[in-house]
């Protein structure tokens, strides 16, 4: 059966190559820092199950130290110039989009075929992970197509990939760090403390104000934790179930579903949701690392108000 570990191996091999090429990149004054950083990522993906929990912990401390004390920096691997690219673009025409579309198309068609035809019943792929597997397959198909068609130097995909990953830098690892922080917060009882604080500000007797505190609490706690999944169990235990559902007899389906979406409004407004807000800022090379968040606030706030109204109107019909 194809499991996620196949993909870890693929990604691990890629990061190992980034590390090696970084080490050899004499033009980059921080080449050893970059090599160590991507090397640790390779070690995590290839050997994370072997080195034990404490070993993984030390690995994470290494990543944080290398990134936090400025040991990694942007590189400039060999690539084509702006003029050469304009030349290729007009020469190749719109066919250039086809390899880029192979990845989403493979993921899309593969997922559909696997789930809605007898193909999936053979059980080749780890359950619920098929989209990721087809994403990986799409990458390999796209690479094969580009090589067959354009014949770039053999090292080019790794050098071009390194150009992009170094432009993103430590932001590429931050989402995984924040997910880990969430696990530690949960183990330390942060959720219970937040829940008990929220209950103190609930006004007695007003359904609308209770709904408002629930919705705003979901958004604010999501902003703090960077993740609505962490906020939901806490706010459900503090307000959603005991007050909205049990005390005021609200519809549990509405309270649950729309409550979660109120949390998503918080996700749009927080740097803690790094993979949605900080990573794209790095990926698009924005000067302002909070630029994506700034573009989202005016959508998030009115939508939060709509969600609160929806709970009030639909759950207490």
């Amino acid at each position, binding site marked *: 059966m194809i499991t996620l570990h196949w993909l870890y191996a693929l990604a691990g091999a890629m990061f190992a190559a980034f590390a090696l090429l970084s080490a050899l990149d004499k033009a980059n004054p921080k080449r050893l820092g970059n090599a160590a950083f991507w090397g640790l990522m390779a070690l995590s993906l290839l050997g994370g199950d072997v080195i034990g929990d404490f070993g993984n912990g030390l690995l994470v401390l290494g990543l944080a130290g290398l990134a936090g004390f400025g040991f990694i920096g942007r590189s400039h691997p060999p690539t084509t110039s702006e003029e050469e690219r304009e030349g290729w673009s007009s020469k190749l025409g719109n066919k250039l989009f086809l390899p880029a579309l192979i990845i989403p198309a493979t993921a899309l068609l593969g997922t559909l075929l696997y789930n809605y035809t007898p193909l999936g019943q053979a059980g080749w792929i780890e359950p619920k992970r098929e989209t990721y597997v087809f994403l990986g397959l799409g990458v390999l198909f796209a690479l094969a197509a580009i090589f067959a068609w354009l014949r770039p130097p053999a090292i080019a995909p790794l050098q071009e990939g390194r150009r992009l990953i170094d432009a993103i830098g430590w932001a590429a690892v931050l989402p995984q760090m924040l997910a880990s922080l969430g*696990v530690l917060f949960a183990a330390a009882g942060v959720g219970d403390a937040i829940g008990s604080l929220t209950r103190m500000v609930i006004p007695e007797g007003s359904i609308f104000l209770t709904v408002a505190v629930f919705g705003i609490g979901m958004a604010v706690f999501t902003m703090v934790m960077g993740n609505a999944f962490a906020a939901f169990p806490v706010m459900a235990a503090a307000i959603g179930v005991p007050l909205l559902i049990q005390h005021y007899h609200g519809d549990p389906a509405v309270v649950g579903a729309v409550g979660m979406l109120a949390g998503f409004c918080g996700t749009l407004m927080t740097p803690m949701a790094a993979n949605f807000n900080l990573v794209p800022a790095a990926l698009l090379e924005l000067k302002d690392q909070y630029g994506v968040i700034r573009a989202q606030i005016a959508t998030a706030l009115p939508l939060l108000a709509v969600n609160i109204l929806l709970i009030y109107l639909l759950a207490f019909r």
Partner: protein
Amino acid sequence: MINYWPLIGILLVVIGFALKFNPMLVVTVSAIVTGLIAGMDPVEVISTFGKAFNDNRIIAIVWIVLPVIGLLERFGLQQRAAAVIRSMKNATTGRLLILYLIYRQITAAIGLHSTAGHPQTVRPLVAPMALAAAEKQHGHLSEAEAEKVKAYSAATDNVGLFFGEDIFFAIGSIVLIQQILATYGYDLAPLQLAVWAIPTAIAAFLIHATRLVRFDRKLGNRGR
């Protein structure tokens, strides 16, 4: 009696982000301090943190698309995306992003949320196309304006994803809601939850699309 001391960990994160310390360090220090306050010994804290990092490796998988994107950029993908937009008569940044918003919401609603995203589609296709549309319509963009167009491209991806995906019943957040409510004795089918994501999805589209139309107008009005 509830122990409020672990909240110091959150405080550290907020202060660290506000003072613009390196987020990797902020997160690590906060994790260690929170664990120690909660009574874990140092080895236990580091092990818990390491195990969580290892359990979340799936997050790192999306980066395998970078060699393909980089390779296509080498052959002029961004320039090609810009050329296509220049050849369209009625393309504007706002209209283009509204189309992408629809595409993203619908594909996410049928469970295909991992097929698009910031590395897969926004950097190679959506952002260059949005930039080209803005330049075609309004001439050369200042750096601040180009930043805005790119930021709106990423924002549109997020809004489309967040307020489309919960309509799909087999997604993590729906499963989580179902499991939590089940522990209180409310047994709901995932589909019963997913239908209540539709009103918010429509509202999200209306609000964000309105903003995109106004963004078009704002780009057009500058300097007048």
